[in-house]
């Protein structure tokens, strides 16, 4: 099976293009956008980890190491497409249009963090593992029924493949030929559980065989592989050719969440080694240097702009009006039931009484 599903690269570890047919599509503009988003996501991610350490946001889920997966796939989307992310995919979400402030609010325990910018079909992050897959299949089927050319991308991890919802979601999409791309980030761990204990199969891509849909295994640290293969899968979807399962093999450098201690279950030397050899950003830099796209000043400028953007988002978060407990009651139903209305009134009156 590993031979049937080889890890495909377009660019190798040294930043060399190995699939030459893509050359023509790798424009300077695309590369610059990719680089900017990679730097933006990594900078933001690190900032969040540090905000968490300072107690300025709650527990946080870092994605460092997985930037090529998230940026590359999100850039492959069209504006009208749908995104069904997990708790780890704020890199993808911010690339697709979610504001940094929203992301920060989310990790600050604020409901506002679930609201995408107007018109952006970014569903709030899914916390219960794999539950987004059937929903993404359904949303995709709805696009098909409306007769649009829109597609859906849904993210999930290697651990998520063990859940029944993975199976039911893929089967539904397959039977109804729904325009959805199942984008798996195989970072090889589900918290502490390595993929070898998650499944006996050596690849995730091969699971597509169960549904007679295409499965493809790519190097998730090669942003070109991610971008072009996702784009092709989306194209298939738009053309009525149905769903695709993409396994993007990657690695998270850090902890599962800021509450996690990865040294308990794996040798962090491995992360160091991967950072030095297969880092997605380093790889794109190597490519840019090799191809003469690289401009130190420009790169510094990118970093500075990103820093400023991140700082501004943090400032916005800090300035944000404090959480309004009424919000907890007001959006459960379109019209509050009497139960909720009474509870709200009683609680708010009591609270005002306590405060005044």
């Amino acid at each position, binding site marked *: 099976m590993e031979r049937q599903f080889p890890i495909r690269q377009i660019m190798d570890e040294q930043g060399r293009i190995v699939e030459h047919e893509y050359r023509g599509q790798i424009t300077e503009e695309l590369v610059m956008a990719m680089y900017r988003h990679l730097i933006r996501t990594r900078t933001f991610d690190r900032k969040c980890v540090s905000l968490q350490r300072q107690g300025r946001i709650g527990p946080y889920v870092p994605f460092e190491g997985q930037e090529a997966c998230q940026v590359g796939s999100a850039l492959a989307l069209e504006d009208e497409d749908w995104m069904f992310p997990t708790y780890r995919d704020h890199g993808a979400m911010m690339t697709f249009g979610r504001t940094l402030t929203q992301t920060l609010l989310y990790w600050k325990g604020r409901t506002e963090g*679930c609201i995408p910018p107007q018109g952006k079909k970014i569903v709030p992050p899914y916390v219960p593992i794999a539950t987004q897959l*059937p929903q993404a*299949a359904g*949303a995709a*089927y709805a696009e098909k*029924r409306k007769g649009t050319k829109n597609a859906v991308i849904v993210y999930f991890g290697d651990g998520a493949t063990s859940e029944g919802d993975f199976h*039911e979601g893929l089967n539904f999409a397959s039977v109804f030929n729904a325009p959805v791309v199942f984008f798996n980030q195989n970072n090889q761990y589900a918290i502490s559980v390595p993929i070898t204990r998650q499944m006996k199969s050596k690849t995730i891509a091969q699971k597509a065989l169960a549904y007679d849909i295409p499965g493809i295994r790519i190097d998730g640290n090669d942003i070109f592989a991610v971008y072009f293969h996702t784009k092709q899968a989306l194209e298939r979807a738009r053309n009525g050719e149905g769903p695709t399962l993409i396994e993007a093999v990657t690695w998270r450098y850090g902890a599962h969440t800021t509450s996690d201690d990865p040294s308990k279950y794996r040798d962090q030397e491995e992360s160091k080694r991967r950072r030095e050899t297969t880092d997605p950003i380093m790889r794109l830099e190597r490519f840019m240097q090799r191809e003469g796209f690289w401009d130190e000043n420009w790169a510094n400028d990118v970093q500075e702009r990103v820093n400023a953007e991140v700082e501004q988002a943090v400032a916005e978060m800090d300035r944000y009006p404090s959480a309004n407990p009424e919000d907890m009651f007001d959006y459960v139903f379109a019209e509050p039931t009497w*139960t909720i209305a009474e509870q709200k009134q009683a609680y708010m009156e009591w609270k005002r009484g306590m405060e005044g």
Partner: protein
Amino acid sequence: MTTAVNTKTLTLVQAVNDALRTMLKERDDVILLGEDIGKNGGVFRATEGLQAEFGEDRVIDTPLSEAGFTGAAIGMALNGFRPVVEIQFLGFIYPAYEQIMTHAARMRARTMGHFTVPMVIRAPYGAGVRAPEIHSDSTEALFTHMPGMKVICPASPYDAKGLLIAAIEDPDPVLFLEPMRSYRAFREEVPEGKYTVEIGKAKKLREGDDVTVIAWGAMVPVALKAAESAAKKGIHADVIDLRTLYPLDKDMIAASVQKTGRTVIVQEAHATGGLASDIVALINDTSFLYQKAPVARVTGFDVPVPFFAYEDDYLPTPARVLHAIEKTVNF
């Protein structure tokens, strides 16, 4: 019967069918999903003829996968449709519990109204029809405890149609429980075309000053029979058909209990954790000083719904309800 609108004489399951047909005609965004609902017209014939009339794109036979098609329906609801999902029997809804509990019911609250899930989940429920084992659960309380979900349970054809249409038009997810024991038990005049019965309102079926009898779904005829027998003994009951299980019709319950001071609740589900406990709590909250006797609950037992050879013993009967009425009145 002469009324302004034309009516048809329908059973409850026919009224459900009529509601679905009416809404499939009325709104393009209505879409039906479930196991065997298409060509077969549903194992109870609730969707009979609908696929032939509206096509395979609107009346969809799904794979055997409750979590999968309920989840997919949530995705469709997020994306502009009004899915009506059939769970073949309520006892088979549990695989979809996660999708309903965490997603359908919470999406609006989680996104402050930005994303909503206007969907209906229909499920026949209950015992009393000699079904094979595990087909007879009546676990409405597992859903009334779920914030973000409305729960409806009609007892008559008229209400079934009007409430199902209201549920489909409701902007929020609704669990619509159909008492399978009442599916073909009797017929009623049902208006043609579209009408709604308001969600959240109970119905007074009988007026009396001595005791309040509260029931829903398949227990309504049981309560009514008991009330008739009681009347013959000079005990006059207010009989309330709840119709909506979340939110309860607090006003009608409180007004009746404050009038009678005595209450009997008839519930098919297991005693512990049942909706009847909530009604006791509601009476405690609203009508403490009016109560002349403890509220009596006539319920299924704290045992799994048994095989059908035992179901007549499991299910509340008019005799058991009458017994409770008398005890309550003579307290």
